[in-house]
Every structure is written in structure tokens, then in C-alpha cells.
């Protein structure tokens, strides 16, 4: 397990598959992380970004067949860090955001917590 203390952290989960979202929540709740979401569509994600109140986002690259480029753009514009989660390779990432961290599905809890610790705002 990571040594990083993730309490005080609030994470937006953008994921269209409820089972995977639930699993992410479990992993994060165990670490004392507060979860917002999950947002299962691009429009729901944009609404939640608008509402704010989170430090970092976990972002599935494809929501019900829709690419998440708009969500990534909005997060980047708002200066909110985010981590892609994907079953595709790196090719599936939005072109403008290829430098962002990526976690491949299926993932270990450790991959998630490590990535959050590394990329959370300082």
C-alpha cells in the first residue's frame, strides 16, 4: 500500500460502467478519500466540473461511446489535474492530452492511489 496520505482529498470519478465506478469508490474510500460522482456521461461530467468541489479527477476515456475530449479540455482549462483510466492503449487518449497520466484497466488499487498521490495538487 502507498504511504501517501490521501485523506483530505476529494476525487471526481468519471466512469460509465457502474461496477467499475463502485470498485473505484471502494478503493478510494478505504484510503479516506472523498468521492464525487460517478459521472457516467460527458454532459454529467461537465455539470459536475461546473459544480466543482474536488481536487483531482479520474477520467474514463470513453463514456457510452462518446469521447471525453471535452471533459479533459474543461478540466485542463480549470487547472484541475486528472488521470485517464482506459481499456484502450494510449492511442485512445485525446490528442491534446497525451502527456497526462494513464492507468490501464483492470487496475490495482495501488496504481490508483499512487497516481493520485503523485498528481494531486500540491
Amino acid at each position, binding site marked *: 500500500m502507498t504511504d501517501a496520505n490521501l485523506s483530505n482529498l476529494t476525487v471526481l470519478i468519471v466512469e460509465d460502467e457502474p*461496477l467499475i*465506478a*463502485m470498485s473505484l469508490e*471502494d478503493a478510494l474510500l478505504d484510503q479516506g478519500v472523498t468521492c464525487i460522482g*460517478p459521472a*457516467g456521461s460527458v454532459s454529467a461530467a461537465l455539470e459536475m466540473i461546473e459544480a466543482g468541489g474536488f481536487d483531482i479527477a479520474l477520467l474514463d476515456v470513453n463514456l457510452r461511446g462518446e469521447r471525453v475530449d471535452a471533459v479533459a479540455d474543461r478540466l485542463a482549462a480549470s487547472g484541475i489535474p486528472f488521470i485517464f483510466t482506459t*481499456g484502450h492503449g494510449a492511442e485512445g487518449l485525446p490528442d491534446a492530452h497525451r502527456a497526462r497520466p494513464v492507468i490501464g*484497466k483492470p487496475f490495482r488499487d495501488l496504481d490508483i492511489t499512487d497516481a493520485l498521490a503523485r498528481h494531486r495538487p500540491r
Partner: protein
Amino acid sequence: MAQVMEPSAGQSAGPPLSGAPLTDGGPADPGRPIPCRVLLLEDSGMDADLVREHLKMIDDHAFDIHRVETRQAFIDAIADGGPYDLILSDFDLPDFDGMSALAIARDRLPRVPFIFVSGMLGEENAIEALKKGATDYVVKLRMERLQVVVRRALVESRDRNELADKRAALAESEARLRFALEAGRLGSWELTLATKRLRVSSICAANLGLSDPSEISTYDRLLELVHPDDRAHQQAMVRQAVSSGSPLDMEYRTIWPDGSVHWVQVRGRAVYDKDGTPTGLAGVSLNITDRKKAEERQLLLLEELNHRVKNTLAMVQSIARQTLRAAPSVEAFPDAFQSRLRALAQAHDLLTRRHWQGASLSEIAALTLEPHVDAGRVRVGGPPVNLTTGVAVSLHLAFHELATNAAKYGALSAENGRIDLDWEITPPAGPAARDGAGHAGPTASRAATGALVLRWRESGGPPVVPPTRRGFGSRLIERGLAHELEGDVALAFDPAGVRCRLVIPLSSRVNPQ
């Protein structure tokens, strides 16, 4: 038929020792005389013998002479066809004349040399005969000419026939090639390097979206039709094929006059002059747009498959984690986990049968409940509703949890218990209801679009004791399903029986048929 000379059947050794004044155009094997069938139209036996004697002197040929004396016999022989290699004819016959014989022979056997052998043949007749197609003529006073004339006629005829055969074979081969090109939708093209002129077949033009081959008469014009991104590659490949002599094999996109993009495969090879300098390129072209599309589709499918497999693995991971969390004991884990995996697999089977185009709500309900429906324990009913794949999987897993719970603790655990699963479509709410909804969300969209209202009601089972903590099933239904469907979910552990009510706004993912 008179046999003047026995063919030596190839046994006689060596070239003839005498009487071989002619050396050109002879057979490849000088020891084997060339068989030659002659039709001789001659009413006089003496003259016929004279002809035989002279022919005998041409000793690299073995003549087989068929003599006819009358018009009818001549016509019959011609009709029979022989096959004859040579026709010798008298000019004046009692019931026939040479010019008529010539006309018949030219008509029926145009390729067989025809030589007049006549006692007298005026200059006018001779000219007329040659005009009408006679090969030559010999007057009987100078019969020694017969050998030269016959020999030359035979050699020329053989050469002519050989050429004609070659031409026919070439034409046939060209026709076959054309047929194969057309059948294979292969276009052909030819580029002259010095002039950069291009000649293309109509299929080749069609592959570039043009109906008239003359519209592509230069290489520069062709380049204009090549997709700008592929032009440099096209030119480099052509240059390389010319300089290296290696075969040209390339694929590029073309833009048709209507703006559509198509793929062309081109194969060819440089053509050289006798000094080895490349003078041009020639080859074929093929429209491979369909193949390219299929390749792209296959790539997409592979990518989609990869995505789906990863996603499914992540779902299995989630099921494992949550089953383990909720399991009362380690011993209880395998059965609960395996049963959920099987439910997931069932959903995939159904969706695969539907080509991953979604499924109907009744199909999904039947997947879990059919055995119980058949046993009269479960009643399922509602109007047709289409579900997309994601919704179908989530609902199926929810039904699976509800049914498993019912079998363990609820209505299906008692002899007389039963389950009613029904659903209906409620119309969109009126304008008054919409007014208050200033924010987008489930309530607002339901008000605008109508909703699917689905009820699960158990009865006749043992009294329900609400669980002390929410298990995987409850969580999947209350959190997961509500999230997935953007709807309202109410799961109640009513003492009389478990009840579950879903209100799902209609959308492209959940829509009545």
C-alpha cells in the same frame, strides 16, 4: 489418289545426295521429307504423270497427290477439305475452267496455295489469275519451273500460315487478357517517360473516378487526382521503379471528381529499350477501396474487442472485490462469485446473439427468470422496450441479484411465494410539471421524455427481515443501476415481500419500440 512417293517415315538417313538445289526454308530435319498433300485438277493422264515426275524431284517433300478430273470431283474434294497443302490446276478442262476452280478454292481454302499448270496461258489470263488469288502459274512447255514454283509457294504458305497462326494466337491471348482484366476489374496503364504521356484503360480511368480514359493523358494529370498527402509517396515509388528496375507496387488514395476518397493499388514494371535505358512504365491498377474499408473495420473491431475485454476484466475485478467484501465467510465466496460471473457471461451470450446491438427488456427479464416463469412462480409482463448493451447488462445483473436473494430468503424460497415483474411507459409530464425543473437531471429529463416504470414485487414468501448491512446486490441496484440509468431506484425490504421500483427516463438507451 496416287501415291507417288512413299513417305520414308523418318528412317532414311542423311540429306538427299542429289537434286536438292533449294536450301532455304527447308525442314529442321533434312532427313525427313515434309509430307505434302496435293489436289491436282487435271483431265489428262499424261499431263498428270508429268506433274508427278516433276514433283518427285522436290525430294525434301513427300507428295501425296489426289487427282480429280471433273468439276464435281474438284468441288467434292474441296468440300472434304483434304487437308491440302497445295492445289495444282489445269486451266482448260472439258466441263470446267480454271478460273472457276480458283474462285471455289479461294472461297473455301483461302490459305492453300493455288498454282495453274497449263498447256497455254495467255498473258492476260495469267494476270487475271494472279489478281484473283492464284499463287503462281507454270506453262507445260517449261515444266522444269514447277519445282521452283511449288517449293516457293509451299515455303511462303508455311510462313504465311505460321504468321497467321501467331496472329490468331496473339489476338486470342489479348482477348483472354482483356477478359481477365475486366473480370478482375483490373485497369491497365502505360507511361512513356520521355513525354510523360499516359495511356490508361477505361477501368483504370474508372478507378480514378473518370469515365473517359482520355481525361488522364499525362502523368501530371494523374498526380492531380492523387490525394495530396500521397503524392510525394507516389512520385518517389515511380522514380524508384524506374531507376532500380524493381517492380512497382503501391497503394494510394485518389480523390474523385465528386470529392470522395478511394484507394487504388498499382503494380507495374519499367520498360527498357534494347540498350537497357528505361523508356516507360506499364502495369495494372485495382480499386481496393472496399478492401481498405474492411481492413479499417477489422482494426476498429480488434480495438473494440480489446477495450471490451479490458472493461469486462475490470468488471470481474469489481465483482470479486465486492463479493469478497459482502461474503459472510470465505467459504461463501466461491459460489457467490461464480454465480455472478455466470450471470455476466449469460448477458454477453445474449448480446452476442443480438450482434451487440442491444436487447429487449423482456429478453433480459427472461434470461434470469424464465425457469421460474415456466414453473408458474414468476409473472413477467410489459410493453416492448429496447435497451442498449450497457443498460441491458446492468439490468440483467440487477435481476440476477434480486432473483438470487428471492431464492435464498424471499418469495422463491417458499412453496407458494411468487414474483410479479411488470413495467409500463408513462407519458411525459405536462408543461406545468416541466416549469419547475430549472436544472438538468433525471427529474427534468423524465418530465420531458416520459419514463419506463418497472416494478418487482414478491409475495407469499417468509416475512422479510431487512438486512443489517447493504450487500453487493442492494448496492448494485441502488447505486449502480441508478447511476447507469440516471433514474430513481427504490428498493424496499417490506415484511410482506421485497419490492423494487425503477423509474428510468426514456432515452436513446431505453426506448419503447
